[in-house]
Structure formats: C-alpha cells, structure tokens
C-alpha cells in the first residue's frame, strides 16, 4: 500500500506496476472518492491494459494503483489461485511490480478476485479488489445511463425490487444466485457482480477495504471497512444464502461454498471447497473429507 516508487527498480520497459504515475494518481483519486461515498460508482478514465476486457482490466488498474513494493499479492478466480486468469494476473504483477505473491489469504495484503471472497475472514489492513464486468445494478431494467444516474442520485430504487418480484413470480422464490444486489451504508444500491450471493454476508462489516473496478464500463466503487452491507429482499421472501447438503469432500469443511468436480465418466462427482487455499490449509491441519484418499489415489 506504499505509494513510494523505487527509483532504481531496474524495470526499464515499464513504470512500477505498469501504469504511469499520472494515471495512478487519477485512479487513486477515484478510489478515495469511492471510499468517501460507499457504494457510489465513480467514473474514471479507464486505460488500455495489456489484456482483454473480461480479464479483469478494471481490477488490474485498481491493484496497479494501490500496490507498493512491500505488498504481498494473491489473485483468485472462482476461488482458485491456479486458473489461467489468476495465474496470468499474478505473473503480470510479478513482472511489472516485482512484488511478492502468495496463495495464502492470511499472508496477502492485496487480494484481487473474480467471483469469490475468501472463506477465511479478512483482516484490518487487507484490501480485496474485485474485477467487475457490469457495475450498474439497475441496467437490467433501465438501459438509459442518464436515467440510472438520476435514480441513484434520488435514491429511487423501486426497480431493484421489480427485478426481485419478477424472479419470485416466475420461479417461486428469489432464484438469483450471484451478482445479488446490496444496499451499502443505507444509501447506494450496488452490484457485487459476479460473486455468488453466498459471499454477500462477508461484505457486511468486513474489517478489510473492498474496492471494485470495472474496466470496460469505467467505474470504481468501494466498501470501506466496517460498513453495513444489506442484501435486498422482501419481508415474505427474505435473503438466504446457498446451503450445501454435505461438507467438502476433501477437507470436511461446512458452511463454505462448494464447487462440483466430475471424477469420471460414470457419473462420479464430488463437492469441494471453491476456495482452494482454504481447503489446502485445512487439510494441512489434519482435516479430512470423505473422498480425500480416493481423490489423491486417482491423481
């Protein structure tokens, strides 16, 4: 988080963390504004990054603007540290900022994520940077940008409930499972896209700073530490998170978000932690799920 830049970084081709200092200042100003107005989407002059949109260029620009030489970076995609997207972004920052990287949630100072919030509660001083594809929660029903801005300004959020009403009318319940809208600090409605709603409660009163970057849509928003984050719902259809019948097949964890893994072409499958670091950490500490031995034998 140190803004200091080593003058002798030895990186001839790039400025530290790729972006030039002028751009970083501009993005930091947007971040500060976003922190000052929790949940409000601050426009910023999104830059071209050496990766396509959809690869998290918004999150990458936020991370590049806040990262310092002392930071320890973790990058996750669908909860895993080893997917192509996560590996590429991690390698990018190793190359352009020469920072330490980790897969351990507790060791990271900055965690860039797509989809998941780590299972291990985040601590004071940590920053969670989300890669956001579509920042506007009202877009689904109101395509006009001028109108959605006005709705935010005047706190006209009836449309959000229209969306939830439709869901119940057609599915018998609120079937929305990710990008589930929240109200931040009792004021702005925000889209935590595309995290599963399972993670919504983790945003509430988190000790960490949460920053959201949307590259293509050129928006940054934030949830400062210790901020109220409430998932929208109806009195007779209250917000609920996904629940899973069985614990993680590898580490036995309960109350965590599980991914389905296909084991063979005979219909064999198991459910395991989507947060791979959490799962490994538990196994290292002696926790075992029902399939632990079998999975290793298969490998």
């Amino acid at each position, binding site marked *: 988080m140190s803004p200091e830049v080593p003058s002798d970084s030895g990186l001839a081709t790039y400025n530290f963390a790729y972006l030039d200092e002028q751009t970083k200042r501009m993005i930091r100003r947007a971040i500060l504004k976003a922190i000052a107005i929790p949940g409000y989407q601050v426009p910023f002059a999104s830059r071209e990054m050496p990766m396509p949109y959809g690869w998290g260029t918004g999150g990458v620009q936020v991370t590049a603007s806040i990262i310092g030489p002392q930071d320890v970076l973790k990058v996750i995609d669908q909860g895993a540290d080893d997917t192509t997207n996560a590996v590429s972004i991690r390698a990018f920052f190793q190359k352009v900022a020469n920072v330490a990287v980790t897969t351990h949630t507790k060791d990271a100072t900055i965690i860039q994520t797509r989809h998941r919030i780590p299972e291990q509660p985040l601590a004071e001083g940590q920053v969670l940077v989300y890669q956001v594809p579509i920042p506007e929660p009202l877009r689904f029903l109101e395509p006009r940008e001028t109108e959605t801005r006005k709705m935010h300004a005047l706190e*006209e959020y*009836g449309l959000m409930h229209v969306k939830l009403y439709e869901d119940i009318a057609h599915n018998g319940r609120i079937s929305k499972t990710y990008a589930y809208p929240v109200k931040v600090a009792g004021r702005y409605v925000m889209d935590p896209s595309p995290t599963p709603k399972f993670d919504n409660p983790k945003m509430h009163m988190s000790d960490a700073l949460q920053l959201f970057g949307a590259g293509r849509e050129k928006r940054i928003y934030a949830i400062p530490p210790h901020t109220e984050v409430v998932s929208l719902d109806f*009195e007779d259809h209250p917000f609920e998170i996904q629940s899973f019948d069985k614990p993680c097949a590898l580490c036995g964890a309960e109350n965590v978000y599980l991914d389905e893994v296909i084991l063979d072409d005979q219909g064999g499958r198991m459910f395991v932690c989507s947060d791979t670091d959490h799962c490994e950490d538990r196994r290292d500490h002696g926790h075992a799920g029902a399939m632990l031995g079998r999975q290793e034998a298969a490998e």
Partner: protein
Amino acid sequence: MSDTPLLKVKSVSKFYGQRIGCKEVSFDLWPGEVLAIVGESGSGKTTLLNCISTRLLPTTGSVEYTMRDGSIRDLYHMGEAERRFLMRTDWGFVHQNPADGLRMTVSAGANVGERLMAVGNRHYGNIRATATDWLGRVEIDADRIDDAPRAFSGGMRQRLQIARNLVTGPRLVFMDEPTGGLDVSVQARLLDLVRGLVNDLGLSAIIVTHDLAVARLLSHRMMVMKDGHVIEQGLTDRVLDDPREPYTQLLVSSILQV
C-alpha cells in the same frame, strides 16, 4: 368540490425556438373535475399537457398544485426528488402509446406493482394481491398476471397502463390521446372503463384528445386549442352544443375533420 383549485395554471407558454408550442394558457382545475383539451393536430395540446405535468419545462408561466396536506406548491420550483415522488404517487400519466408508459419486458404484475415498490412496499404477497385486484378492475384476467405486456392486445396494454398508474391512489391523472391507437370497438370499452374509474375514485383528470366524442363522454369542462392558443373554454355540454368561436363551430359541425 372544495374551495381551493387542485391546480392553478398561470400564463404557461412554451416556445420551441421561434415556434409556438402553446401560448399564455391559464386555467384552474378543481378537485374531481375532468378537463378535456381538444384541437387539431399540432395545436399544442401535448405541449401544454407536458408542461402542466412537468415533463417539459415551459418558457414562461407557473403551475401551483395543492398537495395532500393542503399546502400549495409551485411545481416548477419544487426539488426534483420531491417532484418525481409526486409524479409517481399523487399523479398518473397515461401515454397514447402504452409502450411509452409500461415496462414491456416485465410481467403485468410487476408493472402494476412497481409504484408500490417505489414507495417502499416490501411484502411480495401484498404487492401481488394488490396487483391482482387492479388487473381485475381494468378487466384483465388474473391468470395473465405473470405475462409480459408484449403478449397483450393494444386495448389490454392500455388498460394495464391505467392500472399501473392508479395503484397508488393518485388524485390527478393526465392522459394524452388515451384511445388514440385503438380500434373503434376497443375505444368504446376503454372509455367506459375510464369513465367508471374516474367516477368511482373521484379523480381529477386532464385528457388531451382530438376526438370530441371522447371529450363529450369523459369531461366536465373543455378547452379548445388552435395554433397554441386556447380560443374557447367552458362546460363541455355548453361548448359542444353552443360553440361561440367560429373555429369551434367548424370543429363541432365536423366540417373540420380533426
């Protein structure tokens, strides 16, 4: 009728550059009164309606509105948040083209329920029950509640638009050619429905129409517009049975097909 007008329109003019939209229009609208604005195409009816309903800012003039608490407010000097709140609670606006007033991609139930949710209703069951009730009042079968208006006929869409507007119990409804795009037989049914609702609910309404039959059926009073000016106004029966202005006489005698 009470002794305070619901609406006091004073010298409202709207210019589009050099062109006159409407000029120096003044009138009072009383609680429970239905006013028809008639005139041929291009005479300024829509411009005037949009100015009064604050969808358009006039070039000059003022409109005073008596709020539910009895206080009188100048609409053009009201904060935007309060004005928009007024528009979706105490007012209705029925567009000629239902697609302009409906959300075509969400269900009929959500279309009717939107205003309730906008004012903070957070009980799905109650919202749905109210929507069901309103669909019944505008003669739409309850089993269509989850269908999008895209699947509805023109007449049904217009009835849905009316339900969507009336669900919050507004006191004033603006209508711009509400029967405009409909077949004659469908028009008659809609007019009966509107007349019934206006009577039952004691609504005040301003209805723009080029059709004198609509004015005759629905309105207590009417204003005749020509080239942006109101050239004659009075009780509907009086204006239609005993028009004073030569232009109105032409309109009424149907020599002018408006």
